[in-house]
């Protein structure tokens, strides 16, 4: 009886059959992506981590490439165009962890109450003052008079260091037109040609250089933490590692794996980064390498509830 | 003086079943209209008299024959041989022969025309409509407005100068068309069934006004109509057209002095004669071969 009915439906009501098929397809598509999100999975399931293609993600690259022991957390790296997209992927569970810039992280942490997002560590890079010149201009350091340079703020330590050094090198800093903007906006401004050069901190200098702009001046001896704009812990931070609700064991293993990348030899690290980002090793040799560090007490006190700690 | 010599107009058409065919709208019509006469072209609907009128006005080119207004040819006939066709196409590839010049407003002949469905511009007020036509005739700006108002007054539209045609009744719109045609003070006025779409009472009023204007100005008027009464009441001469293909069937002179009564016996006799012509034609419907 049931078979007769089914046959009748299929033959005489093609619209119904088509509708059922489409519904099944759509539902199947919806639920397929959920299979990766089921909680309490095996220990060796790879974690999906979102990143943006810059040499600053070095610890991540090394951790993903190494073949190390049973303690290692296997990783699946997913590249996103912007960290905003990575953050939304994190919110909706398409990735388990993401590297997000410090300026964007507070808002991100606030938008997700359930499940809560936590910061499990930071990627660090030396502070350093770097002057990056726009790629289509070919000026020497002394010819910067009259040009527009972006700086973080009037009180910024980097800016003071630069002015001192500039006077020493024969350039009058008063003749430079200054615009103030946060560090995050500087490289995009350079790309959009709204400024001629930027005075930025080390990590952004490297990013700018990897995009083809020229570094005219670099000073790694600037002490971090001397100005209000950037407390020491944030001055050296390039990214926060933000994780979604995962069990403590997995997060601990992730942190451990990333910390272990600090032991690798610099040449090997540079080789891996060069393969992942396409920047030549020769270029990378000019700069220090980014390192991962777990949440320190200082950072924990800054982030309060949002910092992940092993005693969850 | 309008002189039409052996005007013919052929169209190629596609029948309902997809075959191509030819349609003769006007077949070898020769006509001469003297100055100051009121001539009616009479015929059943769709017998090609409107086409003939448009050929007289220069809005369509005849397939054969020519029209001379005051000795000047209106439009050259359409080409008949292949070589002529290529020449024609090359000469008129940018601007069609019906068009006036590109930038200068210049009427080719001193004629005005009133159409079947009024064709007054709905985006201009009555006054602006008349001013537009006056401007085309290069009347100086100072005179334009006074002339426009004078003619609007003449047709009885004072007070409606600033109304748009959509706000006026059918009869008023026809008066506006009449005012436009008169304001340019042409020698010849061509009318294509101007009173067909108004009710009988308005029609009689308009006819009386038209007669009065004609008598006071002495222009040549060529009126196309299918109404026998109208033709008989208004005109000096009636040219009867036969149904498709349109040829001149007969020319009847109406020699009744004006002002005429509508039920004058001579007029009745003329009407009966025309109606017997029609009956004969429909009884002995002959096949016309091109």
């Amino acid at each position, binding site marked *: 009886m049931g078979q007769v009915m089914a046959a009748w439906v299929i033959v005489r009501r093609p619209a119904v059959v088509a509708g059922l098929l489409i519904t099944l397809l759509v539902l199947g598509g919806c639920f397929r992506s959920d299979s990766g999100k089921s909680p309490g999975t095996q220990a060796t399931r790879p974690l999906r981590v979102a990143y943006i293609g810059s040499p600053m993600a070095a610890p991540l690259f090394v951790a993903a490439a190494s073949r190390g022991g049973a303690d290692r957390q296997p990783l699946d790296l997913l590249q996103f165009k912007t960290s905003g997209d990575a953050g939304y992927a994190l919110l909706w569970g398409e990735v388990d962890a993401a590297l997000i810039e410090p300026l964007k992280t507070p808002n991100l942490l606030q938008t997700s109450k359930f499940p809560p997002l936590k910061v499990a560590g930071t990627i660090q890079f030396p502070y350093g003052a770097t002057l990056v010149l726009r790629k289509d201009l070919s000026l020497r350091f002394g010819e910067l008079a009259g040009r527009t340079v972006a700086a973080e703020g009037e009180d910024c330590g980097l800016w003071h260091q630069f002015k001192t050094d500039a006077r020493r090198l024969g350039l009058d800093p008063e003749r430079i037109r200054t615009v103030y903007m946060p560090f995050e906006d500087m490289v995009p401004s350079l*790309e959009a040609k709204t400024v001629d050069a930027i005075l930025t901190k080390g990590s952004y200098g490297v990013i700018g250089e990897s995009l083809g702009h020229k570094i005219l001046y670099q000073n790694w001896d600037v002490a971090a933490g001397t100005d209000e704009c950037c407390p020491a812990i944030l001055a050296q931070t390039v990214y926060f590692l933000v994780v979604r609700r995962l069990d403590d064991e997995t997060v601990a293993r992730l942190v451990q794996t990333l910390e272990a990348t600090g032991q690798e030899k610099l040449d090997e690290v540079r080789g891996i980064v060069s393969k992942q980002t396409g920047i030549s090793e020769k270029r990378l040799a000019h700069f220090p390498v980014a390192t991962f560090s777990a949440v320190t007490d200082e950072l924990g006190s800054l982030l309060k509830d949002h910092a992940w700690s092993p005693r969850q | 003086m309008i002189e039409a010599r052996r005007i013919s107009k052929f169209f190629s058409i596609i029948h309902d079943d997809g075959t191509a065919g030819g349609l003769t709208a006007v077949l070898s019509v020769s006509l001469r209209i003297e100055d100051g006469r009121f001539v009616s072209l009479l015929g059943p609907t769709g017998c090609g008299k409107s086409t003939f009128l448009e050929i007289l006005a220069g809005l369509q080119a005849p397939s054969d024959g020519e029209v001379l207004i005051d000795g000047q040819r209106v439009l050259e006939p359409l080409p008949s041989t292949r070589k002529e066709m290529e020449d024609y196409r090359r000469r008129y590839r940018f601007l069609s022969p019906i068009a006036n*010049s590109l930038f200068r*407003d210049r009427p080719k002949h001193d004629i005005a025309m009133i159409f079947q469905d009024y064709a007054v511009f709905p985006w201009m007020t009555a006054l602006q409509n008349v001013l537009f036509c006056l401007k085309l005739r290069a009347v100086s700006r100072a005179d334009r407005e006074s002339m426009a108002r004078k003619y609007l007054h003449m047709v009885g539209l004072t007070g409606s100068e600033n109304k748009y045609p959509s706000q006026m009744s059918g009869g008023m719109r026809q008066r506006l068309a009449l005012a436009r045609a008169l304001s340019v003070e042409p020698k010849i006025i061509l009318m294509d069934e101007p009173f067909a779409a108004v009710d009988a009472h308005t029609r009689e009023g308009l006819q009386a006004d038209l007669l009065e204007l004609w008598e006071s100005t002495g222009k040549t008027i060529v009126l196309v109509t299918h109404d026998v009464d109208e033709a008989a009441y208004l005109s000096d001469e009636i040219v009867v057209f036969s149904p498709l293909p349109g040829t001149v069937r007969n020319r009847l002179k109406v020699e009744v002095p004006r002002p005429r009564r509508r039920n004058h016996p001579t007029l009745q006799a003329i009407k009966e004669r025309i109606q017997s012509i029609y009956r004969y034609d429909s009884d002995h419907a002959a096949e016309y071969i091109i």
Partner: protein
Amino acid sequence: MESETMSRPNGNNSDYGAKGWNLIYRELKAFLKGALGSVISVEFATVLVPLLIIWEVLPRSGVVPETLVPTPSKIVATFWQMLIEHDLPHHIGASLVRFFLGFSIALLTAFPIGVLMGWNVFVRKHCLPMFQILAPVPPPAWVPITIVALGVGLPMQVFLIFLGAFYPILFNTYQGVKDTDPRYLASARVFGASEFTLIRSVYVWHALGLVIMGIKIGIVLGLVMLIISEMYGGRSGIGYLLVESKEYFNIDRMVVCMIVLGALGWFLIEIMKYVELKLAIWRIGR
């Protein structure tokens, strides 16, 4: 003359003869009444107010995550903050300037070309096929090649907005002029009108309805391209604010940007509707 106008009693046959400021004030009043009239009405309020209440209550009570769905009160507060502190007027101004630049270039090129193509078969046969080939490319697909050719800055944005607005205006003008009733052309020609007068006084006026509709569609598409171009380049404008809010996870600012954009589009369309009313006053009789 000035004192005469000023001393005339209000509302008493002031229709003809109001000059200068009186005229502008009267037109503005009529425009606002027409534009806001359909939105601010009792009937719509009975629909809108319950929706607003639901929108306000749901996030607060926790049914919907509060951080992901901002309440109307929060949106108003953010809007106020953006207005005062974050230079919202400057961004709106920058967007508007770009939009008008691109749109006016599109109007000034598309309208004459459309008229010429509709008027003359010779012109049409030569020009129309090229536009018909290029038109199906969706304007956003032009973005990469525009960036390659013009860089990332004002020329790129103006060009993209121009592309968005050009085709609707062109094709609608062409269609309107082409379909002009031949009776009007015949009656004007008989009186001796030159082709130029015909275009000026007959074709354009007859096609006005379609032209204005084309302009409205052009405005909508131009706004779309405005947002897309600001997302890809430049550092100012509502589109840029929108993308920046997304990057920095400011959901409430995103919603404010969307509302501002919607209001902008609505306002421009209302202006066009008013222009149509003023120009096409002869249609009222129908």
